[in-house]
């Protein structure tokens, strides 16, 4: 049977066909759909872990017990999981352990574009790189075989264009899981005290040697000889781009990109006249191939930054710059960035941050969009949980100069991922930071996933729900207050009070994501502008709500140019009733009673 699957769907299918028993992840673009699709297979235990480190540790435990386990994360998630990762390279596995690293060249939805192929080399763990969905599925299966045969965790690395592109996949039946589930004490292999770990390191090096031998015969490292004038060594999506524009050149397509097949590479190089390495991001293959004493052209002509496209590959190798500049468009194109939704509970909070001219240490989530004008109220964004540490550092370094001027803002899922320990630091080390937790009862940036604060598992089963107030109290925060972010007056009052404190304080803003069907409040009626009352002050416009539209009045136009009280105005607002959900924030800002309710639903 054939299906059209994304790389992520194919990886989920590959896990199922491999007899995976445990699958874990923390959501992160472009990896999120892997676990979401794995929930379709009831045979597999699946979980959203609080963070990637926990996900990998749970996967490791399952592997130690003999089960096949798959752990999925985005590229920066591997940084979080790096601590167990490097030592799992020493312990090895019992049941197969496969880690999916979904990289994001071009930073479609990420804070950096690190090249995680470097992790394979760094942690001495083999890495497979599929170039389409069919391979994504098959490579997961091969990864489990390699993992068990060579006693090592194995990486499967995708990039956004593999994860989110769809292509045709042949569906197969799952194998019967080869797992022998049992608890076996094996301290010399699993207890990485120095004495044991010292003995494991040579085994890792020996394993690398064996994997190099495997690489030479691995059927997914393929030579496709054609026109011998030009040879291309490539992998992953870059292979598809190169094949698209140069179908007649010769290729060495690498399915296993760590370790590399040195003999095979040399054999290929000897047969071709000119050699190119086509790879996105770092000169990862290039550097290793150069160390083999081979002359190649790679990053001399290809960019390191950003993702490739068929045109980039073609232009670099054929030496032509952009073939034809497209025709100049006669108009300016306003950008269309994503925006916080109409009715989003975050909007009012960011409006207040902006109004109070606070330095807002930010975090990773939808609310990072509060950076955009007119709210312009995010001043740092680096890593998951980073906001709290940034605020603490600023407070400690600047002392009174920062007092009342800095606030940290973090989402509920991000706080549970890695904000808890940072908050503990603020309390323990006598910080006075104010932290606003934006609790929208979901993980929204990645598309509304459950987390330990939602009361539901990935499969929708009811479960315990962390109480954020109690959690913060338990950490030692004496001042924890909750606030309804749709009541801007009380948000401002509470925020001012807490910023004045000489002790740590937490404000929990409670308002479910407007996209959450399960928690959606009864739909409110859209609001409307009472045109003759609107004097064009633009107070409501400063919310940056997509439902509020400003209309300029042209200089000589008589129409609409005065208010009820016959005052001149430069323009007026209108509300798009298709978008407005009646959250009422704009109404709170309007001093002229120009925003009223409608009877419509």
């Amino acid at each position, binding site marked *: 049977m054939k299906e059209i699957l994304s790389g992520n769907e194919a990886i989920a299918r590959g896990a199922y066909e491999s007899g995976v028993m445990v699958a874990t992840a923390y959501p992160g673009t472009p990896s999120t759909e892997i676990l979401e699709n794995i929930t379709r297979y009831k045979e597999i235990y699946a979980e959203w872990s609080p963070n990637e480190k926990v996900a990998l540790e749970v996967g490791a435990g399952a592997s130690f017990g003999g089960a096949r386990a798959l752990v999925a994360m985005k590229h920066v998630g591997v940084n979080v999981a790096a601590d167990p990762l490097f030592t799992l390279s020493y312990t090895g596995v019992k049941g197969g352990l496969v880690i999916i690293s979904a990289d994001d060249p071009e930073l479609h939805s990420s804070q950096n574009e690190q090249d995680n192929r470097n992790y394979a080399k760094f942690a001495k763990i083999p890495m497979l790189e599929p170039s389409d969905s069919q391979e994504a599925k098959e490579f997961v299966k091969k990864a489990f075989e390699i993992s068990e045969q060579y006693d090592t965790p194995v990486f499967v690395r995708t990039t956004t264009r593999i994860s989110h592109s769809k292509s045709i996949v042949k569906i197969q039946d799952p194998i019967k899981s080869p797992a022998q589930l049992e608890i076996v004490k094996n301290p010399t292999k699993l207890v990485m005290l120095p004495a044991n770990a010292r003995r494991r390191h040579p085994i890792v090096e020996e394993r690398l040697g064996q994997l190099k031998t495997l690489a030479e015969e691995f059927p997914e490292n393929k030579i496709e000889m054609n026109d011998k004038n030009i040879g291309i060594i490539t992998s992953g999506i870059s292979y598809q781009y190169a094949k*698209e524009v140069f179908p007649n050149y010769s290729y060495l397509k690498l399915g296993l990109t760590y370790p590399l097949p040195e003999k095979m590479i040399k054999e290929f190089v000897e047969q071709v006249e000119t050699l190119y390495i086509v790879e996105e991001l770092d000169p990862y293959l290039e550097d290793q191939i150069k160390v083999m004493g081979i002359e190649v052209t790679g990053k001399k002509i290809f960019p390191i930054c950003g993702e490739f496209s*068929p045109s980039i590959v073609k232009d670099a190798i054929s030496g032509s710059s952009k073939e034809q500049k497209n025709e100049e468009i006669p*108009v300016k194109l306003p950008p269309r960035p994503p925006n916080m939704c109409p009715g989003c509970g975050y909007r009012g909070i960011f409006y207040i941050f902006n109004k109070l001219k606070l330095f807002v240490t930010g975090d990773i989530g939808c609310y990072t969009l509060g950076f955009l004008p007119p709210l312009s109220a995010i001043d740092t964004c680096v890593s998951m949980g980073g906001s709290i540490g940034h605020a603490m550092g600023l407070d400690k370094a600047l002392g009174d100069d920062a007092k009342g001027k800095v606030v940290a803002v973090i989402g509920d899922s991000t706080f549970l991922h890695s904000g808890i320990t940072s908050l503990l630091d603020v309390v323990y080390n006598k910080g006075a930071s104010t932290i606003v937790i934006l609790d929208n009862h979901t993980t929204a940036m990645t598309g509304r996933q459950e987390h330990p604060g939602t009361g539901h598992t990935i499969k929708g089963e009811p479960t315990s729900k962390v109480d954020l107030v109690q959690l913060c109290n338990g950490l030692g925060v004496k001042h924890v207050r909750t606030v309804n972010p749709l009541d801007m007056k009380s948000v401002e009052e509470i925020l001012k009070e807490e910023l004045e404190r000489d002790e740590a304080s937490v404000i929990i803003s409670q308002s479910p994501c407007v996209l959450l069907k399960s928690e959606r409040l009864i739909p409110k009626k859209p609001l409307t502008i009472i045109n003759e009352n609107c004097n064009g002050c633009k107070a409501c416009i400063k919310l940056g709500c997509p439902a509020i539209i400003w209309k300029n009045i042209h200089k000589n136009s008589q129409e609409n140019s005065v208010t009820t009280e016959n005052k001149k105005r430069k*323009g007026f607002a209108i509300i798009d009733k298709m978008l407005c959900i009646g959250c009422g924030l704009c109404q709170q800002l309007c001093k002229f009673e120009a925003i009223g309710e409608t009877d419509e639903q």
Partner: protein
Amino acid sequence: MNNKNTNILAIGVGGQGIILASEILAYALMAAGFDVKKSEVHGMAQRGGSVNSHVRFGKQVYSPIIKEGEVDILFAFEQLESLRYLGFLNPNTQIILNNHVINPPSVSLGVDEYPNDVPGIIKERYPHFHLANGLDLAEKVGNPRTANIVLLGVLSRYVKVDEVHWIEGITKVLPEKLREINIDAFRLGRDEG
């Protein structure tokens, strides 16, 4: 279509149902026996942001994304967005433009102006031009949310695939309760759009 692959670029604004329409398109093409690849980027809160979906089909497809200048059909759900992709078009590109305007934030804020007469700008440069009214026809079907499928019906007039395969695609992608109205929407677009 011969050996050359066909490239369809679907573009518009998050929330317009572009990804869903391109999903049905891809299934219809597979049902018709083609190799198909499709690529889009999602993840950022796409609500209200620019969205594009590349669909390529033929005998064998390598790249899931279309090369600049090689779009055969531009399937545009919103006026302004169509202007962002002129670099992907060529003089033979068939344009299907939904006659619909959604203001970007800077226009709503009164900072930028929405460009005047987008259909005119496009038509002047790309003579194979089809202006469609997805929303009007969807309201005729009885649900404005079917506008994307109405537009898919319009697109189907330019893609040589039997109606039965389009219906297969709709059946595959949409849940049962939504099929009937969307098949109506598709047919209306195919006949009248």
